[in-house]
């Protein structure tokens, strides 16, 4: 999340909205996957499963110290090494030390958002280690020097022509915009990289404490490659990505693959619990699990936000959110975009720094409806707005917009005093006159208010209030209740 000079939320959102290509892709994505996931939830035989998995996630967090200790114990019993990293830097330092010890020249990455969160690539590259993304979408993004814009479909903002041009330039192949041809070109290029790498670096979808294993989900097989062919494996795991038992794992996996891509199962689900045996011809000789806090314990400590840790990163909320569906993922300026990103990014990386995210969402509730584990994201978006409005010592958040606060204080005063309210309406009516155009609309307001008319015209304040009109119409000759009753003949 340490981007240099990232575009603002507004500018990136405007660029997303202005891109017909992105709009088409997002529409297709939401039409298929958003609707599809809702359909699956509506027709599931076991309607209680989502609720149950959520409960089990929350119960895991209430006992996280015990469960992580059990996970570490069991991974170590299998010969794996476990490192607990309180910060991103600690995770980077540890991984780098493992790489240096093993004289690693190339790292192949399985798709890992945690690795993006801790921004490990520059550190590895700084140590003259080649870093190669192996998920096709992430590879395309890496070749393009771009950033992912969807949790599951990272290069959804690029079309086949752009990817064709990119491959022609970077891979030296003849230009083609045929997805199978492009995929095969990447397959060949990445196969060489994967077979020749000394270290695999992955995330962890769900670890299972009971068995001492991590599990990784992929459709492409890149994660299997990255965990099988290099002699060293480092798996980066956010500390919340753990379940206690294999039973809980099954249900969480059941929901994950459905929420993510409407699949009963993704093509590959790998379970790994330590290095390969001495006589195995493949599999890592060293297995390192890095369990990362990096701000998560602060979320854990706050009952208002703990629920967000239950997220299993299926990305379903992106596939239904009307805001994400228009602005795309780049505006969120984080590896975690969409509604989940709008909550988790500010909590991990600063509420003030990412103030636009929670304000940009509509609180329509669609993300809550689709969430695989029924996380109440709208509630937390509102809670983040509250922090921005009033400041929060716990979250080291200052009042985001003092002027806005003054305006609302004034508004509160006006609407609670009838005389002042009427007076201000009258005043407003007079002051607006230079701004009312021939079509009797206000197209541009002055100063701080100009944002209100940036994308739409506003009707002017009426000369007479509703109360005035009512009085004028009915104050004289208003039928009395007794007359009306007689007329009704009752």
């Amino acid at each position, binding site marked *: 999340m340490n981007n240099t000079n990232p575009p603002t939320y507004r500018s990136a959102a405007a660029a997303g909205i202005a891109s017909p290509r992105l709009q088409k892709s997002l529409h297709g994505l939401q039409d298929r996957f958003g609707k599809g996931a809702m359909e699956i939830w509506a027709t599931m035989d076991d309607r209680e499963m989502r609720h149950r998995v959520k409960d089990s996630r929350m119960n895991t967090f209430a006992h996280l110290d015990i469960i992580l200790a059990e996970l570490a114990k069991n991974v170590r019993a299998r010969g794996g090494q476990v490192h607990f990293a*309180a910060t991103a830097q600690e995770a980077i330092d540890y991984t780098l030390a493992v790489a240096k010890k093993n004289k690693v020249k190339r790292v192949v990455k399985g798709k890992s958002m945690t690795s993006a969160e801790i921004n490990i690539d520059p550190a590895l590259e700084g140590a003259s280690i080649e870093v190669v993304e192996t998920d096709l979408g992430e590879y395309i993004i890496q070749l393009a020097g771009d950033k992912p814009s969807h949790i599951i*479909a990272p290069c959804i903002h690029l079309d086949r022509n752009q990817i064709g041009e990119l491959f022609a330039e970077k891979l030296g192949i003849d230009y083609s915009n045929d997805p199978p041809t492009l995929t095969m070109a990447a397959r060949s290029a*990445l196969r060489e990289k994967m*077979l020749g790498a000394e270290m695999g670096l992955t995330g962890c979808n769900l670890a299972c404490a009971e068995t001492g294993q991590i599990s990784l989900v992929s459709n*492409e097989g890149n994660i299997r490659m990255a965990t099988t062919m290099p002699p060293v494996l480092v798996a980066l795991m956010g500390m919340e990505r753990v379940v206690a038992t294999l039973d809980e794992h099954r249900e969480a*996996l059941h929901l994950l693959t459905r929420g993510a891509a409407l699949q009963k199962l993704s093509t590959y689900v790998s379970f790994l619990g330590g290095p390969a045996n001495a*006589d195995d011809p*493949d*599999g890592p000789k060293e297995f390192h699990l890095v369990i990362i806090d990096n701000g998560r314990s602060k979320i854990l400590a706050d009952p208002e936000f703990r629920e967000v840790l239950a997220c299993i990163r299926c990305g379903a909320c992106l596939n239904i959110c009307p805001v994400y569906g228009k602005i795309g993922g780049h505006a969120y300026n984080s590896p975690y975009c969409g509604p989940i990103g709008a909550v988790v990014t500010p909590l991990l990386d600063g509420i003030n720094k990412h103030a636009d995210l929670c304000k940009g969402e509509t609180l329509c509730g669609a993300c809550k409806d689709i969430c695989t584990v029924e996380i109440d994201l709208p509630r937390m978006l509102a809670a983040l707005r509250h922090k921005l409005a009033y400041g929060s010592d716990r979250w080291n958040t200052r009042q985001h917009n003092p002027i806005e606060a003054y305006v609302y204080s004034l508004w509160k005063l006006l609407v609670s005093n009838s005389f002042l309210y009427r007076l201000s309406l009258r005043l407003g009516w007079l002051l607006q006159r230079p701004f009312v155009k021939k079509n009797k609309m206000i197209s541009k307001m002055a100063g701080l208010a100009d944002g209100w008319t940036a994308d739409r015209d506003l009707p002017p304040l009426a000369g007479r209030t509703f109360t005035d009109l009512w009085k004028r119409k009915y104050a004289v000759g208003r039928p009395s209740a007794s007359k009306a009753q007689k007329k009704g003949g009752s």
Partner: protein
Amino acid sequence: MDSQNAFLRNIRQSLGLSPDEERPKRLFPALFAKTDTTLILQGIKNRTAEQQDELVELLKTNARALSITTHIVRTYEEAAAVIIHLVRTKSPEFTPTKHIIHHDHPDLAALQLWKRFDREGEGVTVHTTFSPDRQLREKTIASFIGITAPDIGVADSATLVQFTATGCPRSTSLVPSIHIAFLKKENLVADLREAYALLRERARLDSYVFITGPSKTADIEAQMVHGAHGPREVHLLLFCLSVVAETPNEAPIPLVPLKEE
């Protein structure tokens, strides 16, 4: 361990507990309580032939939807014939010559593949993943077909569960362009619930993988392409000694007799 202690201390503090008081697992038996799988395991064991045949049908239907080609085979000879046909008709993707590799597994040894490619000029090299072999990595990379005998098949999702074991390495079902899986009907279960019950019985396994169809991606304009990094084709040889005879195979089986030595 210092980093672990500090880390877990911090978690306890975040949970509003005394940071220095470790909570032993034994005081929270419900956390790791196992559900009773006796009935599930009994159900698998006592499945009737008819029920098994239903699972076969279900598996075939689900496999088709995932681009897995299912071949019902009744004998080792038929299984070998399908493999020979595939080896002969498919082209290698990364190498000029045809190498195939199979797990060191009794069911695959019974196919005697090493002596089946003796046509003049055929030039098929058959490797077995014997564990002491130091060149297995190179042989696997050179092979265009990898043959394994998965330990569990799951009908509901058309999933193969492949355990990693001595003589059964991970890369055989991953690195070659085509994966052929030999699955015995009796290893077929209904759904993941049953598969997990069996997995729990094998809790000491370090590594296993669920394989559900060929490798695929839809990262370019959401168009599905098979063969992103793993095998681009998966063929399932379902070994059914008493299979429903009326069910036609999806792919024709050219019978190739085993030559007498």
